[in-house]
């Protein structure tokens, strides 16, 4: 079974009526890293929000077509249920950090699943170590740098152990050491069968992707092997995707 199935997805924000996604169809398999590329405003983040169920459950609007994660129809299940399948790290991590310490932030979701305290402690310990957060484990997330906030948000999401991850520009504000660390972690998670969608602008950050989806003005204009698309400089230049 494909981990993600998107079929003929269209989406309009309300009340503006702006059509953001136009007949998007693709599938992503278990253990696949799929990157989503395109100019600002082309619908990349909106697509990510559809996978996590934030659209249509929180943001409303008009969604047609099908979005399935692990066989579950997104529009028929609430966000709490979907969070067990899809871990979503937002472009702006401040929208998902709200607890007084980094440790609390990572423990929050496992606590809400009523996991045994020793399992919660283990997951927090693992995340803190894996993401290199031990120096700031007691820090207030609001007082961290942008890159550190993204690491904490990622830790909080990974602590739920979802099978699908959607990462919206998490590496944009990270230093090169943190970027490398995240890429290594994602490659490792792929080995465990996780399906990962990364939304990024920097071609360098896409080096771990198996496939790339290119969006233009809400439409999927190319879906292919990452190595082919990254090598197609003429296409990337035409799409204004090269710096």
């Amino acid at each position, binding site marked *: 079974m494909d981990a993600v199935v998107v079929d003929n997805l269209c989406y309009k924000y309300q009340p503006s009526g702006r059509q953001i996604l136009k007949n998007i169809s693709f599938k992503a398999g278990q253990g696949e890293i799929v990157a989503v590329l395109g100019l600002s405003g082309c619908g990349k983040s909106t697509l990510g929000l559809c996978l996590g169920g934030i659209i249509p459950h929180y943001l409303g609007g008009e969604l047609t077509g099908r979005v399935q994660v692990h066989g579950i129809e997104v529009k028929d299940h609430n966000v709490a249920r979907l969070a067990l399948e899809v871990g979503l790290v937002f472009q*702006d991590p401040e929208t998902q950090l709200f607890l007084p310490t980094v440790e609390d932030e990572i423990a929050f979701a496992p606590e809400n699943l009523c996991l045994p305290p020793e399992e919660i402690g283990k997951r927090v310990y693992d995340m803190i170590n894996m993401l290199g957060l031990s120096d700031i484990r007691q820090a207030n997330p609001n007082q961290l740098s942008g*890159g550190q906030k993204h690491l904490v948000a990622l830790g909080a999401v990974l602590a739920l152990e979802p099978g699908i991850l959607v990462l919206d*520009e998490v590496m944009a504000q*990270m230093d090169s050491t943190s970027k490398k660390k995240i890429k290594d972690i994602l490659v490792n998670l792929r080995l465990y069968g996780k399906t990962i969608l990364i939304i990024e602008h920097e071609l360098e950050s896409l080096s771990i992707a198996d496939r790339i989806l290119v969006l233009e003005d809400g439409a999927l204009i190319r879906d292919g092997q990452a190595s082919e698309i990254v090598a197609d400089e003429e296409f990337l230049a035409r799409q*204004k*995707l090269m710096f």
Partner: protein
Amino acid sequence: MAFIDLINVSYKYPGQQRTILHDINLSIWNRGCTAVTGSNGSGKTTLSKLLLGILTPVTGLVKLNGQPLTSMTLPQIGRRIGYVFQNPDRQIFCATVEEEISFGLQNQGLSPDQVLQKVKAILDYFELTRYAHTFPLALSAGEKRRLAIAAVLALEPDLLVLDEPTAGLDPYRKRLLGDYLEKIIASHKGVVIISHDHQFIARYATRFIRLKNGQVVEGQGA
């Protein structure tokens, strides 16, 4: 005399034990493009907020044209230094994109015709004309960042401080921004860019300051 001088500046956030910046001595001119780099949490954003008077040093002094920032109001400082936050949501508050850009210009006392002309030019340059009447918070993150940058650039401050300006910008918009910064620098104004985007700063910066564990480890001099 430098435009901004930081003299023995140290800072830690209230209620926190960790000192973010230690004994910084630095001069910033309102000419050229200065890049501030360093790993996450090294104190870059804190440094930028000290330059603006948004934060006040725990010890030491920050001077703007020889005058201590503590003797100036934020609007007085804001007329000389433009600041684009790392998170554009922090500075966007008007009902439409057009109003967001005209807000600062109106406060500078420009005539309605001048405001209109400048707003039109900047909307065109940053390709935001189609969103002129859109509610800014309905834009994508990249579009919001372009708007936040455009609104500050329209004011033509003596020094522009941009915190991670390329995060969320696609490569094409990064080049547009860089080209605009070159124009600003050519008109004898200064730019400070805080960024991890080495490709971008390598192309546009003329001076590099690197922070490590709250200290300047490179670029202390001019």
